[in-house]
């Protein structure tokens, strides 16, 4: 039997060719050990389990989630033999695996982004009361999308909704969602709000929404972002970076648009309340008019009474000057010339007497 003979370079090349043909892309799950970043660009670590260990290499920009020693991860990459004869995995993407690692990675990134202020409440913008143009980023085949659209259509009409169909799970999801965000934020006619929708799933299913670049893209969006991801208990980093976080896709629909029946009831109540309001105004004006008439009547009566009082006073005054009243008290009224020998007339209360002046003396 003739064995093939290669140069070392050819052997490395043909081995890589064989590996590439047999395993173009594989996923390997294991625990991270000896994690290090060289020159701020190159990431090296070992992936190991109880019996074996394999070296891994990747670029820093491909590292989308925090990774540290002891963390359980799933890597996606290609096996490769280097020119120095060292076997390694060239990693395309890495994601935490298992509840403990996912949580740990989540907490590390959360703390870092929080420190940068990406989740600060004063960055949050409010959503328009009634948007006219809505951009939705979701998987149209997903149940969460169907729930969201059903409730939006039930609650409100007249919206223009643009839907970007993306995958919302797996290693491709963050980049697809980022591209959709970039698409919507660079359109000539901007949407009033971007809604990111994804139904419930496991922590691993939802881990795409904890991708650092995606979280940064959500925080940087020039259009307000509303998220409806998973169930009420699932809070992703995208939720924290969004302007408004809905508990579920259905809740996102409720937060996005008002309920048309509520608006109908509200407008009817507004109009119905106007009739008693106008009647109230009429009643108030009627009372004001009545009050004025009453005050005018009272003033007239007072004026008449004043005239009566003045008349009575004048009458009393005139009576005081009546000579008859003096005569009745014994006085007499004398007419004629008060010279000796002249005849005078004396009038008393009961008689008129003629008399002659006998004597006249000046007092």
């Amino acid at each position: 039997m003739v064995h093939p003979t290669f140069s070392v370079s050819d052997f490395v090349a043909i081995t890589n060719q064989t590996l590439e043909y047999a395993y173009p892309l594989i996923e390997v799950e294991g625990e991270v050990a000896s994690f290090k970043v060289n020159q701020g660009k190159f990431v090296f670590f070992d992936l190991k389990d109880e019996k074996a260990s394999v070296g891994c290499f990747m670029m820093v920009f491909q590292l989308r989630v925090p990774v540290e020693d002891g963390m359980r991860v799933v890597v996606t990459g290609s096996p490769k033999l280097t020119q120095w004869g060292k076997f390694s995995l060239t990693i395309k993407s890495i994601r935490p695996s298992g509840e403990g690692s996912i949580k740990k990675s989540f907490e590390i990134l959360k703390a870092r982004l929080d420190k940068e202020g990406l989740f600060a409440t004063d960055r949050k913008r409010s959503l328009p009361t009634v948007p006219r143009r809505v951009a939705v980023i979701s998987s149209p085949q997903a149940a969460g999308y169907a729930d969201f659209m059903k409730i939006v259509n039930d609650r409100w009409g007249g919206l223009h909704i643009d839907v970007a169909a993306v995958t919302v799970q797996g290693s491709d999801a963050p980049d697809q969602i980022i591209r959709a965000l970039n698409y919507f934020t660079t359109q000539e006619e901007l949407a009033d709000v971007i809604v990111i929708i994804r139904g419930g799933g496991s922590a691993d299913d939802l881990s795409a929404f904890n991708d650092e670049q995606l979280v940064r893209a959500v925080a940087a969006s020039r259009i307000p972002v509303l998220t409806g991801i998973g169930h009420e208990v699932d809070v992703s980093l995208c939720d924290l970076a969004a302007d408004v976080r809905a508990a579920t896709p259905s809740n996102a629909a409720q937060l996005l648009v008002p309920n048309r029946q509520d608006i109908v009831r509200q407008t009817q109540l507004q109009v119905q309340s106007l009739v008693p309001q106008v009647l109230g105004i009429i009643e108030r004006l009627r009372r004001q008019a009545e009050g004025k008439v009453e005050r005018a009547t009272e003033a007239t009566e007072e004026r008449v009474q004043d005239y009566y009082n003045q008349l009575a006073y004048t009458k009393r005054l005139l009576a005081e000057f009546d000579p008859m009243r003096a005569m009745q008290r014994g006085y007499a009224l004398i007419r004629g010339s008060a010279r000796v020998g002249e005849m005078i007339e004396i009038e008393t209360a009961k008689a008129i007497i003629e008399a002659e002046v006998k004597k006249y003396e000046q007092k």
Partner: protein
Amino acid sequence: MNKSDTTIQQKIDQLDALVAWFDGDDFQLEQASKKLQEAAKLAKSIEQDLNTVSNEVAQVKRSFASDSAE
């Protein structure tokens, strides 16, 4: 969309303004009946729009699976 160019939100804003007129300094009893009729007509129109208008949904044609735009 609505038959007229006025959106539902604009009609709601108009109704709010009409209702505010009844509480404002410009209120005149002589105009109240006319304004009341306008408000009732607007409310009816809003109800009709809300009950008949539907949403327009369009799926973006480009693929987001890769960086290249369609």
